[in-house]
Structure formats: C-alpha cells, structure tokens
C-alpha cells in the first residue's frame, strides 16, 4: 500500500483512531497487524521474508544479550514463515474475495521448511560455544542470515549474469537457466535495520526486545518499513516500549509532515518526473540542452520523491506518537560531498559509517587506508541501491568526489569556506557534481549513460529554444519547493514552520493543499521502493 494511494488515508485514520484507545500491548498487536497488512498489500508472500528476519533477529538479539530461550520456542517462531506460506497457498485462494493471489512455489516452501530446522540447530550450537565467543557468533549469524536473504533476493541474478558475461568474455560459454527471483519491496531497509539491531545490542548501545510481538511491530513498523528511515534500536525501540500519551501536538506535527511530504512527492517529484523520464528514455534523441534539463529534473524528482516519502513516514509515525529520524536536511545546500552525505539519506549514510566504514578502520590508518575504506564503503553503498553496474559506478563516483575533496586542498578549503561568496561557489559546484552523479544513477545501463554523456557534446541553438518551455515546467514545480526551503532553512527541519506567523502558515497550508490537489492525478510510485 503506497502512501499516495487512496486507501492509505483510511488505513492510517483507522490505525490512529484505534491506537490511542488501546493499552500498550494492544498497540503492539495493532501495529503488527497493520504493518503486515500494509506490507502484504504489495504481495502476501513478502510477509514470509519479513517474518524470517524478525524471528531470526529476535532470538539472535536475546542470545547476544545472554538470554537463552527454549528450543521449542525457537523452532516454533522460526517456522512462522513456513506457516504463512502454507496459508498463502492453501487458504487465501479459497477466500470469497476477488483477489488474484500470487502462486507460492514448491521452492519457496522448501526454503521456508529448512529455516526452522537449520536455525534451531545453529541456535543450539551457538549456546554450546564458550560465553566469550557466543555473542559474537550470534551477531555473525544475524548479519549472515540477513545478508543471505538480501543477497539472494536482490543480487543473485545480477552476479550470475555478470559471471556469465565475464566467462563469455574469456571465451567460455555457459547455458544456465537462471531462476526468476522476485525482489521483495523494502528488503534492503529492514535487513539493514535488523543488522544494526543485533550489532547495537552487541555493542551495548541497545537492549533486546523481550517480547516477540513488540520486536515484530518494531521491525515491521509500517510508516518506515518500505523505504526507511533506517532506525536504530537504541533510539527507536524505547518509543514502542513506553506508553505514549495522546498530545494534540502529535496531530499538528504529523499532519504538517504529511502535507509537506505530499507536496514534495506529488507537486515536485511527480511533475519533474515527466521531463526526467522523457530524457532518460533510451528512445529519446538528446542534445546537451535536453540532457542537462533531464538531469536537473531528475535531481529534484528524486529529492522530492524520497524526502517526501520520509516526511510522509515521519508524519504517519508522529500521529502514533512515535518520532522517526530525519533523513534529509537541505542536501542541495551542501558545500562538499562529505556534507552532502550528512544531509542526504542521513540514516543510510550513518548506517554505512557505523557498520562498514568505522569497522573497516575508518580514518584511523593513514590517508591510503582511509581512502580505501571510503571507496569500499561508497561502492557497497552504491550497490545497496540496486543490482546494477550503474549503481556501483555511482558509488565509485561519490567515492572519487570524497577523495578529491580530501586530497585537493583548494576543494577542501572551498568546502570549509565561511564567506558568503565562498559558500555560494561551493554549493553551486557541489550541486553540479551531484548532478553528474544523478545522471549515472538514473541511467539504466552503461550504454545509456554513454548516450547521455555524448549528448553533452552538442549544444545546438535550436535545442536551446525547444528546451525553454519544458525548463519552465521544471521551474514552475521547483520554485515552490525552493521558496518553502528558503523559509525553513534556518530550522534544520524541512517541514518546520512553527516560527512562521499563524496567518502565513495558514496561507501556506492552503496553497500547498491546492497544489497537491492539482497534481493528484499523476499517481506515480516512489523511486526508493525499488531499492
């Protein structure tokens, strides 16, 4: 169920209305049911994967903290994915509802059947290890199982195809029939949140959830399930454990965040998408003007899309009294790549910093080692976005930028500049470099990227005229966002309007509502759902 679907407001309203009437444990059950319904609306089979991560990490988390559970509990709860798939196969198709239920294949059932046996054995084996090694073993088990799920569903075909291509290049022809693997939505986000949960318990930064329903509600929490923010247990879990008291402020802040999110998504992103999709269609003949306009449009599309999603997620959670992390802070005002990653998809970049870059050694081993760590982190972060070489290249491009800004003194000085002119130049330069990255990100293949780059070599005068009107279209839809950001830039939160006079706020809300309504028919999905 998408945030911009017609069903979502009713769903959210029902959940919020019920939530505040229930006792704490009832709220966990409600959030669990609502989250799984929300997720199953895409594909009921996806729920089995979420259950897999949930059951494994629940027991791993408690084991890391030294809490042993009976093997019967472990076996029973890790068999939940199998149980759910059996329900999908044997029960749901017989319900008297007009729904095209997806097929549950024999392989899925077999894999789900192996899970409780394998995990129970591993769990029992883990507890036989010496206490000094046990916690580390369960952390490893959690990381490995989450990465295995992610790797299989997201990257198996990518690496298999790449291997076939590599072998073909070496003159070896293989004829493999690759399985059709569906990429479950949200998998990249909840597997990362699961990993951080286990690692943070091990590091003593969080405590394990002592109730399975609580943990399942925490990991599957519908506002942030599909595209983040990727939360940390130390900050997020206590919000579930503590009874929240109704406060109208939650309503005000939640609705405002939702309004701003809808504005970013439906007015900015979806309208810029019209131009970006045209330019990045391989069939479109391009010149430099169109190529440049396309990437600018995409820059605002992806920003509006993802930060809009985040605001919608934060707003929805706020209505339930829960505060999600801020994921965006005016990223296009960054003066350098380092600052850009402190402003763009903040919860992902801090995740990579804390769980990849720093464990690799961070900047503790000299320039060469630091740069190597940086490159590894950024390439992996690029690959996280999708199973494609263009994403790997995008990660490498940002690693290159980070390296350049570290090594080239004038760039480092520019990034640190405090003068007005210096900041303007730094922001403009970084925005231009970011656009280069977005071109790599948006192209679906290296061939398309070559086509886009080649277009930059031709700037015909006639092209400048033809691009004027569509440029006007982009400007019309970006200008309100720029205006909004200009008015909120001092607040460090893109949706913060409390400092405005109430009259200005009321007028702004009315105008934004009108803009959202006039763009309501675009009906485009969020970009980050595919990751």
């Amino acid at each position, binding site marked *: 169920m998408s945030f911009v679907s017609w*069903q979502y407001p009713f769903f959210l309203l029902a959940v919020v209305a019920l939530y505040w009437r229930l006792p704490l444990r009832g709220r966990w059950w409600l959030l669990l049911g609502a989250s799984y319904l929300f997720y199953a609306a895409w594909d009921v089979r996806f729920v089995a994967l979420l259950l897999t991560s949930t059951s494994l990490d629940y027991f791993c988390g408690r084991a890391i903290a030294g809490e042993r559970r009976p093997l019967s509990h472990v076996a029973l709860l890790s068999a939940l994915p199998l149980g759910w798939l059996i329900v999908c196969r044997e029960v749901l198709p017989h319900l008297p509802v007009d729904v095209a239920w997806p097929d549950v294949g024999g392989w899925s059932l077999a894999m789900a059947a192996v899970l409780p046996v394998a995990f129970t054995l591993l769990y029992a084996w883990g507890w036989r290890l010496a206490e000094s090694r046990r916690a580390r073993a369960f952390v490893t088990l959690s990381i490995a199982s989450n990465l295995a799920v992610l790797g299989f569903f997201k990257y198996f075909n990518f690496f298999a195809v790449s291997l076939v291509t590599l072998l073909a290049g070496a003159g070896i022809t293989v004829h493999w029939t690759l399985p059709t693997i569906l990429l479950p939505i949200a998998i990249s986000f909840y597997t990362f949140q699961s990993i951080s949960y286990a690692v943070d318990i091990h590091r003593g930064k969080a405590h394990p959830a002592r109730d399975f329903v609580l943990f399942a509600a925490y990991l599957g929490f519908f506002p942030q399930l599909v595209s983040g923010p990727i939360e940390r247990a130390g900050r997020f879990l206590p919000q579930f454990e503590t009874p929240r008291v109704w406060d109208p402020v939650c*309503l005000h802040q939640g609705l405002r965040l939702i309004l701003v999110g809808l504005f970013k998504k439906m007015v900015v992103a979806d309208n810029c998408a*019209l*131009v970006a999709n045209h330019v990045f269609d391989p069939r479109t003949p391009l010149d430099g003007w169109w190529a440049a306009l396309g990437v600018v449009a995409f820059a605002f599309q992806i920003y509006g899309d993802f930060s809009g999603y985040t605001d919608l997620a934060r707003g929805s959670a706020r209505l339930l009294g829960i505060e999600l992390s801020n994921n965006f802070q005016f990223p296009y005002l960054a003066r350098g790549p380092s600052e850009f990653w402190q402003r763009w998809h903040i919860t992902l970049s801090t995740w990579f910093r804390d769980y990849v870059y720093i464990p690799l050694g961070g900047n503790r081993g000299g320039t060469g080692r630091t740069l190597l760590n940086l490159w590894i982190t950024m390439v992996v972060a690029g690959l996280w976005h999708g199973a494609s070489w263009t994403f790997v290249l995008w990660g490498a491009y940002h690693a290159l930028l980070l390296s350049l800004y570290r090594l080239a003194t004038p760039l480092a000085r520019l990034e640190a500049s405090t003068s007005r002119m210096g900041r303007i130049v730094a922001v403009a330069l970084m925005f231009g470099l970011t656009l280069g990255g977005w071109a790599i990100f948006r192209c679906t293949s290296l061939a398309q990227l070559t086509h886009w780059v080649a277009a930059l070599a031709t700037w015909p005068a006639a092209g400048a005229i033809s691009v004027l009107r*569509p440029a006007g*279209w982009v400007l019309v839809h970006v200008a309100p966002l720029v205006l909004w950001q200009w008015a909120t830039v001092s607040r460090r939160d893109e949706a913060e309007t409390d400092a405005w006079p109430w009259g200005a*706020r*009321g*007028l702004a809300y009315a105008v934004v509502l009108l803009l959202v309504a006039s763009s*309501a028919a675009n009906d485009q999905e969020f970009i980050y759902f595919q990751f």
Partner: protein
Amino acid sequence: MPSPRTPARLTTRAFLLAVGLLIVAEGVVRLFFSSSMSGRFDYGYNPTAGFVERADGTVSLERSGGRRFFPQRFPVQPPPTTYRVMVVGDSVPRGSSLESSYARQLGSLFASEGALCEAWNLAVPGYGVRRVQVVLRQALRYHPSLVVLHVNDSNEYEDEREWRRSREFQGWHPRNWLMKSLVFRRLYEARTEKVSWELLPEAVRGRQGVNDADAEIAASMNPARLAEWGDRVRTVTRESVRLCTEAGVPVVLVTQARRTRLADGRLGLDDGGLDAFAQSLTNRTVAWVAMSRVFRDADLATTYADGSHVRPPAHQALARALRDTGLLESRRAARAP
C-alpha cells in the same frame, strides 16, 4: 521537532485559516466557474452536453468532458427569417478549423445564394454515437431548421471507455473524492491545460497519459465487439433520427467512408455498411449524403488527411453535396408566405 511555540489545542489558528480559505475558494469557483466545468468528469455524458445558457439570451458552448467544441455562441432563438443549421458528429465534421469545416462552408454557400442562414459546428472529436446523441438532444432545444448528423462507427471504443469513467466518477469511490471539489477541479484543469499543455511538448505528455491504444486495437480486432458496436451505431442513429423527426426538424445523414488500401494496392473507400443503413432511413424529411459517393472520383491521396479525416477542399465538396439535398430549400419553401 517539538517546539515551545506549538499550541496544544486540537486545531490551530493556521489550520482553521487554511480550511476557511479553501471553503471560500470553493464558494467562489462554484459561483463563477461552475457552468464551464461542472461536466468535466461526465466525460461527455453530461445531459447539458456543454450548452450553457447565458443571461444575455445566448448559448455558449463549453465542455462536457475532456473534449471541447470549437468556441461558439449563438442566440437561444434564431432571428425570425434566419435558418439555423446544426452539424453534430465527431472529429471529421469538426474539421481542422471552424472556418474550413463543412458546417461553416454550408452556411457560406446558403449565404452566397441570398439566404439568411447561420451554421453551427457542434461536432466534438472522439465522440461516438451515444455522446453525439447527447449533443443532438441539446441542439434540438435551440430551434434548428436543419440538423446534419455525421454517422461514423469508429469512436465506439472511446464512447464505451468514457461511459465507464463517467459512471465511476459518479460512484462512491474515494479515488474521485478530491475532484468533487470544484476548486480542486478548476486548478487541476488549469494546471493541465494552461501549464502542462503550454510548457510540455507532446512527446513528453504522451508518456504520461493513459495509453490504451493496445486495448483499443485488440477490441477493434474482435469480431464480436465490432458486431456489438455496429448494432449500437445503427440503433442509436435510428433513435437520433426519430428525435429529429419528432421535433419536426429535417435531418441529413452524412455517412463516413474510410480510406483504405485495396487488394490491388490502389486507394479506395470503405463505408463499413453505413451507406445501406442510412439509405434505409431516408424519407421526406431525412436525406442522406454518402462520403463514398461524394469522393468516388476524387484523388483520395490528397482529399484525405489520414484514414478518416478530409482536408478543407473536401469539406467544401461535402457542403455542396449537403446543399444539393435540397432539404433546406424545401424547408424554406414550406415556410414561405
């Protein structure tokens, strides 16, 4: 995010102001713009068909769906000695411009022969027989001396689709709730027509629109669907002719002929069986002009702009053929003192 300035009441002044502004905007739009947009989501099936009577005693042609008439305005009552011709149909009689369409050409012909005549082009592109009949019902309210009914069978897919959409919009579905508000609807239209159409090239817009061309082609290859559409064209056209007859208005049926490539590679015309059907309806007050006959000896490569639409000189030829039916002459003779 919590701020000391955030009030703790259920509603805030800013929220109330926003709601108040939207209510005022809705009221203003309902007061000043409702006539020009109330039928937008009836997809051509609004009973008014987009005919709006003004306070000054004229009728203006607005929209009743996504499609529009050529902008025209005429008095409710024609002047006493003036003959009023109304042409209803689809994009073929509509033509590429109002002046070059056979409706206006027919008016000019009569005028050149000394008759006081006004001719109105009430054709709307994409309209099939059902929506054409909605327009016809309105046209008959405004005292036509002659109706020209262009009969075509190539828009039935769109007619059906738009009927479905209009029913959906009138239903309960929450997907449509937003557009029930006229201020949202007005803004949506303004954005689409004044901003989107102005600023985005067709190539860009085309990707965004719902493209059901494949479904249309599939439907048009289905013999059962074609037979169903053919039956509908005949039934509804017969009913339209009856409406004219009951209103005492003579009618000329213009049957469409499509340009096709014959087996020997030459261009030919295909009336799809409409000619025989129209001929069966003719009587003292119902005449018939067949495009297949008018253009029998014409150079089809230059007469037609595509498979269905004809160029301005062909509109002139159709206007002459319409005049030659003599229906308006007989009407004038009958009304002569």
